[in-house]
């Protein structure tokens, strides 16, 4: 199989000739977080050390719930000791004028609530700790 032939045609734009077909691929982003666009789809490059750039692809869960984006806390529906089932709405955030329901990622007990109604929360800031974490559960809402 032949190797692709690549030529840069504009800033961040590459013409890639491969197996008798031509693709135009766009690449951009900081060195540790490169993104590409080809044929309507976005790809993210893996870091050299094998970890994923995209934080959502963590391999194991931590017993906490984080904010997905900068947002305002509209409602906190649980408190310390609350028992939650996977999928229960635990916090309602508002961002870009829309409400986002943040759901419990798993069954468990709330160990700590780290935000109050009206707080402005930043991405990745911890909103809730869960006491019972299952190592195989997905961390993100």
């Amino acid at each position, binding site marked *: 199989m032949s190797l692709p032939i690549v030529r840069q045609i504009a800033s961040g734009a590459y013409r890639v000739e491969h197996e008798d077909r031509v693709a135009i691929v*766009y690449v951009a982003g900081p060195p540790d977080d490169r993104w590409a666009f080809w044929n309507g789809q976005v790809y993210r490059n893996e870091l050299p050390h094998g970890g994923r750039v995209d934080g959502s692809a963590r391999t194991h869960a931590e017993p906490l719930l984080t904010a997905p984006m900068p947002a305002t806390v509209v409602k906190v529906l649980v408190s310390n000791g609350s028992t939650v089932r996977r999928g229960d709405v635990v916090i309602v955030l508002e961002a870009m004028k829309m409400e986002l329901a943040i759901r419990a990622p798993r069954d468990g007990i709330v160990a700590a609530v780290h935000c109050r109604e009206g707080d402005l929360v930043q991405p990745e800031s911890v909103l809730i700790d869960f006491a019972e974490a299952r190592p195989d559960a997905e961390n993100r809402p």
Partner: protein
Amino acid sequence: MLQRLLIANRGEIAIRIIKACRELGVESVAVYSDADARAAHVNAADRAVLVGPAPAGQSYLSIPRILRAVQESGADAVHPGYGFLSENATFAAACEAAGIVFVGPPSDVIARMGSKIEARRLMQAAGVPVVPGETPDEQSDAGIGRTAGRVGLPVVIKASAGGGGKGMRRVTRPEELQEAIQSARREAMAAFDDGTLYVERWFERPRHVEVQVLADGHGRIVHLYERECSIQRRHQKVIEESPSVALTSQLRDRLTEAAVSAARSVGYRNAGTIEFLLDTQGGSREAPFYFLEMNTRLQVEHPVTEQVTGVDLVRAQILVASGDPIPWTPGSLGQRGHAIEARIYAEDPARGFLPQAGRLWLYREPQGPGIRIDSGVEEGSEVSVHYDPLLAKVIAAGETRDVATSRLMDALRRFPVLGVRTNIRFLLRVLSHPRFQSGQIDTGFLDAEDAVLTASEPAGLPAVVRAAFEAHEDRATVPGAPGNGDRDDPWNRLKGWRG
């Protein structure tokens, strides 16, 4: 003719209006918040006025601050665009009181149609069919719950002041009622400062078809045919088209007649849209339709109407606001070919369509026959968490629906946006879905097909993408390599924008 028009908005719609001003020789004034100091609409206008900090409530939504900007800039008119203050009767009345032309209907019409409850009553009086439903006198959770019981589940709870899906919740099971009522009221309070709710019957698989109308100050009202907007997620439209494949010419006649009567009965002026729900459950080609609401402003999806009628709606709005009569007689306008619009949002379909914020490291709009792009960003723009995540609208026109669809899909495949996640891939999946292609769509389509439309792509990089990544790294790391930091390389003019 208006002399100087202040555009009380941002993003793509501000730029769209600025372009119309340029063509008409009207001076344009942009307003902006701290977060938008370097936004594209600020650069596009003849002048620009800072109105306040990033939160919309202290800038784009602040009536005193917008009015002060009007005074300071010496504008004689205001165009509100859509969203923000566009359907705020208090703002329109304040403009009227200050002798400033509001490009839109009279404030009392906005107030009447802005109360969705009052609008229902007016339409019933004008003989326009409305969706079966009820407004609870008692606005408590229990009162609204009882009303929902009387209307009969499933119902949709709506905000009287609502629009754009805000303050709207569908309820199918009794145990969902309380959370739905409370969150609808909260969202309505936050968005409109009015938590009044009403209840309508929920139709299982309706189509959303709306009619564009235009009325002047001389008693003439024309319609500019329909748009079908059945492809929506949580009442937020995603893809819109004209004509609607669901209408026979007889049904189109009845629908557009109802829309014109509705507009006439409320003394409408300027551009407006009457939204109808088309109940296709019976399978009849003459499906019953019901008035949903009237939008007393320009719509996001107005370009599809412009592409099939040839009318520049924003220009027409400015002319009507200047006191000119509409130059067309009813029936003199036609629908030519087909147009489809897709809205590109900064959102991540794989994670519940979470809005995304960040810098656009790379953003290149495609070109092609029949392709029009209305956008509010450019390469290097910062997408802020403070405002709607709409980046651009791609509108494709062609002689048939198939041609328009193919053109739209080709444009989306060639529209690189890097730096924030977008719904481009999702849009392509919608457009290539057999149900979309055959026109068998309803407002439940996106929910019903969600699993297919949002499924993650297979992991791993295609060979061509891997090769491009490698070429990019070589270019970036080899000192003196072509295109790597040479000051005279024109491509490096964009360099400062890279994150």
